[in-house]
């Protein structure tokens, strides 16, 4: 459930953002398409982050002492 939502949410945001940019700049399919691919990439990134136990933190940096989080906090 969590993974699926993560994937779809990023895709929706990507396409939505692209669509709005298109409406604004009058460049019909360009940004929506770009947004689709960036959204998909962001979605996979989110899924990767959840799966590797980094939470859904963006800009995450491994703790300096190298000790990984013992449990995925979710």
């Amino acid at each position, binding site marked *: *459930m*969590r993974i699926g*939502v*993560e994937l*779809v*949410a*990023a895709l*929706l*945001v*990507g396409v939505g*953002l692209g669509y709005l940019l298109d409406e604004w700049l009058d460049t019909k399919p360009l940004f929506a398409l770009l*947004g689709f691919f*960036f*959204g998909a*990439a*962001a*979605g996979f*990134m*989110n899924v990767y982050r959840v799966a590797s136990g980094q*939470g*859904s*933190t*963006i*800009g*995450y*940096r491994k703790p300096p002492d190298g000790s990984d989080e013992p449990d995925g*906090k*979710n």
Partner: protein
Amino acid sequence: MATSAGAEHGGGHGGGHSPLEQFQIKELIPINVGGYDISFTNSALAMVVAIGLVILLMTLGTRKRALVPGRWQSIAEMCYEFCANLLRDTVGNEGRKYFPFIFTLFMFILFGNMLGMVPYSFTFTSHIIVTFVMAIVVFIGVTILGFVKHGVHFFSFFVPPGVSLIMWPLMIPIEIISYLSRPVSLAVRLFANMTAGHTMLKVFAGFVPALGVAGVAPLAFATALTGLELLIAFLQAYVFTVLTCLYISDAVHLH
């Protein structure tokens, strides 16, 4: 509360109610201010009841202030400690000042989800606009917090560490979308879990009278599902709160 409202979208297999009827918003007290419909609905009533119950629990629990807690005080202390530990584990000591917000959020969602488990009641967390507003408040709050704490340095959030300069034009849009997708996934997760669970419960309950004697099987299943739903009601309140804590933690300790 089986009103005639279900008939208009129920499809019409004899006498059965639509499993989605439970999510219908009904106006209780129509209010109209300046062209905006701000009527008091059954959803609003459920929220008021949830808040009332939380206040009741907390005042009852803290009234005696005994050294050895009674039943009510134990419940109140358990809720308090649960949230406090959650916040301490994820944010650390700096997180203390966000405790009132986290506690309110957790109790509100928890009571909303739990109230939804009472037959004939209304689950306000099963409406995406409610969960989305909560998520967007968290999102905007956390973003403002990040800016207040770190100023322009907050933008380094969007550059993952250890990425070469050539990759920046590719990584920054991805990270921004990833960041913007937070409130969406936060809202959709809670909403989808509550809606799906309650619909499934209703569907299986609908099988019971339809199957006659064999209805024992879906009845048993619906009973088991009720237990699962109680777990999910708690779990989703927990997940929403934990993710809020994580977002606060991100904004407070920027890399």
